[in-house]
């Protein structure tokens, strides 16, 4: 049987996230690519394929992969743009991974880039709101992204007695860790009161339950085993990728109806696939993983992720929040780089940003970037990125590990 080759992340780069009115899309991409090439001590010319995650729609350039290839110096190597909504850059990593794992190339660059602020905020809200089943959710009913997740939040409140203050605790944690991350969009501590006093966007979600709109870029260099060993003493291996797709229309999902489903079926499916490949027990997943970045586009989304990923049982995510078990030092540190919530959520660069943080965590370099308090203790040598596109439309779970997957 044909076996995939081992693939490692050997270089990572991350632009400053935020309003990046100072740069065009290709200039923004270059910031992350330059850092990743420097990290791997490679040149752009050595890259054999460029996979560009860019959701687009709000920015002027229709062919970002071409512009970025040219500006970052990988021309004339093959390139493509990949889209999986907010999971776009995890999808780009999955493509680049398979290019290397299959032996098609030995070195591939997975770039994530998004320039959201090229359009005014109401236009961004409109375009993100259309990311569902257009006619049946947007055309007649004007759904927004906070609106979709508010439907999840209300469902959870009705089932498990979740309070708005519980959600606020998640925002407080992620803002706290973003203060330490120099790449983060928001670097200001907040309190439960600040969240509770912020205005409603889509009841029961308030402004500070929501991640911001963000410009940003990330770059990951993926290499096969022999190259990886030449480049670095600490290759971070991709030991499992799981991907799953949910229904376009939220009303077709079972989770609102059944008690056993309060989350995203696609995320559960993706997690189980990734865990199987990486040798992780779903029912005891937190024990295997040192640190996780989960898709907290809204506070409720982080809570759902705890349960979808098997960190706790259904309905017990609340307990993790109330006991502060997802702070560094708890059962499992989650989003201790600030998460989407406070670090920012440049749609096509978010999964890459998670893997940037996790690679540095596994190499025990994150403390150098953000301070010792934000460096997780690495016991198992395993980290997890959970990246959701749409409201569970696309789910990607990626496991990174210090141990080589195939001996």
């Amino acid at each position, binding site marked *: 049987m044909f076996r995939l080759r081992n693939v490692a992340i050997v270089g990572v780069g991350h632009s400053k996230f935020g309003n990046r009115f100072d740069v065009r899309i290709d200039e923004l991409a270059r910031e992350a690519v330059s850092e990743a090439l420097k990290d791997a001590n490679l040149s752009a010319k050595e890259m054999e394929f460029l996979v560009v995650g860019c959701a687009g729609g709000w920015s002027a350039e229709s062919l970002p992969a071409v512009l970025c290839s040219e500006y970052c110096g990988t021309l004339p190597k093959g390139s493509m743009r990949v889209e999986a909504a907010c999971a776009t850059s995890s999808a780009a990593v999955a493509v680049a991974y398979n290019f290397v794992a299959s032996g098609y190339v030995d070195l591939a660059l997975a770039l994530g880039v998004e320039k959201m602020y090229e359009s005014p905020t*109401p236009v961004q809200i409109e375009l993100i709101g259309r990311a569902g089943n257009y006619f049946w959710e947007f055309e007649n009913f*004007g759904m927004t992204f*906070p609106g979709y997740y508010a439907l999840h939040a209300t469902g959870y409140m009705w089932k498990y007695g979740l309070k708005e203050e519980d959600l606020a605790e998640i925002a407080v944690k992620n803002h706290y860790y973003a203060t330490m991350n120099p790449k983060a969009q928001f670097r200001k501590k907040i309190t439960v009161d600040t969240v509770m006093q912020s205005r409603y966007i889509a009841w029961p*979600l308030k402004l500070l339950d929501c991640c911001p709109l963000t410009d940003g870029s990330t770059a990951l260099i993926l290499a096969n085993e022999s190259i990886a060993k030449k480049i670095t003493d600490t290759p971070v291996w991709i030991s499992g990728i799981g991907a799953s797709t949910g229904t376009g*229309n939220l009303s077709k999902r079972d989770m609102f109806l059944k008690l056993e489903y309060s989350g995203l079926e696609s995320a559960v499916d993706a997690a189980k696939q990734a865990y199987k490949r990486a040798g992780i027990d779903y029912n005891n997943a937190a024990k295997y993983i040192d640190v996780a970045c989960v898709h907290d586009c809204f506070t409720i989304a982080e809570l759902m992720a705890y349960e979808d990923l098997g960190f706790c049982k259904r309905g017990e995510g609340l307990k993790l929040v109330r006991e502060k078990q997802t702070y560094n030092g708890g059962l499992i540190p989650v989003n201790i780089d600030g998460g989407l919530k406070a670090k920012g959520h440049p749609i096509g660069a978010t999964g890459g940003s998670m893997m940037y943080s996790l690679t540095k965590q596994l190499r025990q370099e994150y403390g150098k970037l953000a301070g010792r308090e934000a460096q997780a203790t690495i016991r198992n040598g395993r980290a997890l990125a959970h990246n959701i596109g749409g409201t569970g439309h696309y789910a990607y779970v990626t496991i990174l590990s210090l141990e080589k997957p195939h001996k």
Partner: protein
Amino acid sequence: MSDLGEIVKKSIKEKGLPLIEEAKTKLPLYVSVRELPLRFQFGTAKIQKFFEGLKEGKVYMTQCKKCGEKFFPPQADCPKCRESDMDWIPLRGEGELLTCTMIIVKPSTYAHYDNYVVAIAQMKEGVKVLAWLKIDDPRKIKPKMKVRLTTVEREPEGFITYGFVPI
């Protein structure tokens, strides 16, 4: 013409270029002279009965004659058994609320509406429906509340759609 459109005109008149200073950061921005109006059109031939139904005050679902799978939104083709033979069944309208939200920050094309409540209800027939819930005070919304699905005229445009009212 959008606000940005006015800004473009003014900047060109004053400086010969559509260059502005971004309000917060004071960074220079070039505002595109080209504004693209987007209005999509999509085919309804296969589910035309749904729209005919709306005109008669009915909200239709479909059910696969072969495997019995029910669909709302209605669809003409069954992905389970790959057949395309559907029964068109009007929903009686009785449903139970599963979740809801009130949209306060609206998309640009919804800016002219008051805040609206979007709900998902489980219908007696077994399908779930997402639509607006007309309610004077959202604090009256209760889990599993009984609601009725009816066709409604959406003002100010006057087109027919469907929505929930509390029973």
